[in-house]
């Protein structure tokens, strides 16, 4: 099992969720985060004082996924979150050693 962590632009959340539903993903956790990569941020102005906003609002998605679905999930996210402009985000894939469904106590692939 794998854990997909995807940082995307906030307004892409609905598109990504729909794309993941279509390939059979049934659970997503979303958090509001701030971040930057090579996109530098922007300058804002308040009462004559300029300041650089380095950290831009993003949405972080965490999806626990079966190895079989991994590649189609990665493709779905990459396609739906893409705008072609800098700041589209990144996807991280890590090993997931255990998954448990709290209500029933199921574990492993059955809990996904």
């Amino acid at each position, binding site marked *: 099992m794998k854990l997909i962590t995807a940082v995307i632009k906030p307004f892409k959340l609905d598109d990504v969720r729909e794309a993941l539903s279509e390939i059979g993903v049934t659970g997503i956790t979303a958090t509001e985060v701030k971040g930057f990569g090579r996109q530098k941020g922007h300058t*804002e*102005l308040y*009462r*004559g004082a300029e*300041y650089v906003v380095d950290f831009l609002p993003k949405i972080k998605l965490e999806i626990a996924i079966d190895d079989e679905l991994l590649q189609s999930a990665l493709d779905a996210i990459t396609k739906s979150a893409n705008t072609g402009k800098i700041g589209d985000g990144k996807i991280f894939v890590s090993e997931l050693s255990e998954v448990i469904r709290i209500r029933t106590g199921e574990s492993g692939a059955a809990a996904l």
Partner: protein
Amino acid sequence: MENQVIELAYALDTFYFLVLGAFVMWMAAGFAMLEAGLVRSKSTVEILTKNIALYSIACVMFMLMGYNIMYSGTDSTWWPFALDLLGSTDNSAADVIASGGDTYYSALSDFFFQVVFVAATMSIVSGAVAERMKLWSFLVFAVVMTGFIYPVQGFWKWGGGFLDAAGFSDFAGSGVVHMCGATAALAGVILLGARKGRYTPDGKVVAMPGANMPIATLGTFILWLGWFGFNGGSELMVSNVAEANAVALVFVNTNAAAAGGVIAALLTAKLMFGKADLSMTLNGALAGLVAITAEPLTPTPLLATIIGAIGGIIVVFSIVTLDKFKLDDPVGAISVHGTVGLWGLIAVVFSNGDASIGTQLYGALVIFAWTFIVSMITWFIIKLVMGIRVSEEDEMEGVDISECGMEAYPEFVNK
């Protein structure tokens, strides 16, 4: 029949004082919302507490001693001290009729109209010292300001004291209210110091954006509405054709000046910074209102617009200049009410032939000197006794937690 008319006029003018006084009271909500919107979320509860508490302190102190200091009618034109609790008796119908209409309003309605002005003066201070002053130190200052500092200089002009005798002209208080409040704020800001991290050692100004622009805008509109009471009510009478027309003109000029201030500040900010700045635009509206407050009756509406517009330009420059002097004023109160208050006093001479620039400046200087010196002494004593500034950790965590133990937006992630 004539008696009925006299009584009716009395009732109308009393009603006028009461309703327009209520409009000025509503400005307390305006200040509260404006300030809440322009400070950071971690300072919001504290500033709201200050606003409602200072209003209440003003009401009590003015009732206990301030009103009689200001309107004692003593012979002294310099020192008007008369400790005398506000009574509850008022003019009787017989008195009013016997006066032939010279007594034309309820004594208590006059108190009511005046007390809301004290509160307005005091609330000017709360924005300038926001985010780093101890709550209770501020409230102690409020007791002194509303019970003593404001009433004494108020007496010198509106109570018939020496400034009035000298011909100093201030219709609704560009000097007595706005400059006075701003001066007390300036003394506080000087002694208090800037918010931590606001000015870097190499002279850069660090932006600390306000938490809630919609609330700040709402506050500005509320103040704008309240100002019709502030200026309109200061005509002090509405019950005949001449007075009614005067009140109408005052309303129109007040509105026009605010509009001029908005447009001028909006354009000035755009030219200076490259983009429209909402917070400057809001300050511009208030600057326009302050600018016309010294004389909203004699200008034409066009002149009032221009006077307000000049106020809107001045306020933007003043805000930037205060930052250059490292005088940290989170809401621009000193600029809106002080710098433009002075402009308002000067602008009187453009339409009021009875005023002279020399007397206006004299009045401004007297109000400034009295308020600054006594305020500075008061702030200093408070600092010695209980301190005026919160600790650095408390400031970083937010005065809402340290002074009030409460968050303004507990369900939102803050900082």
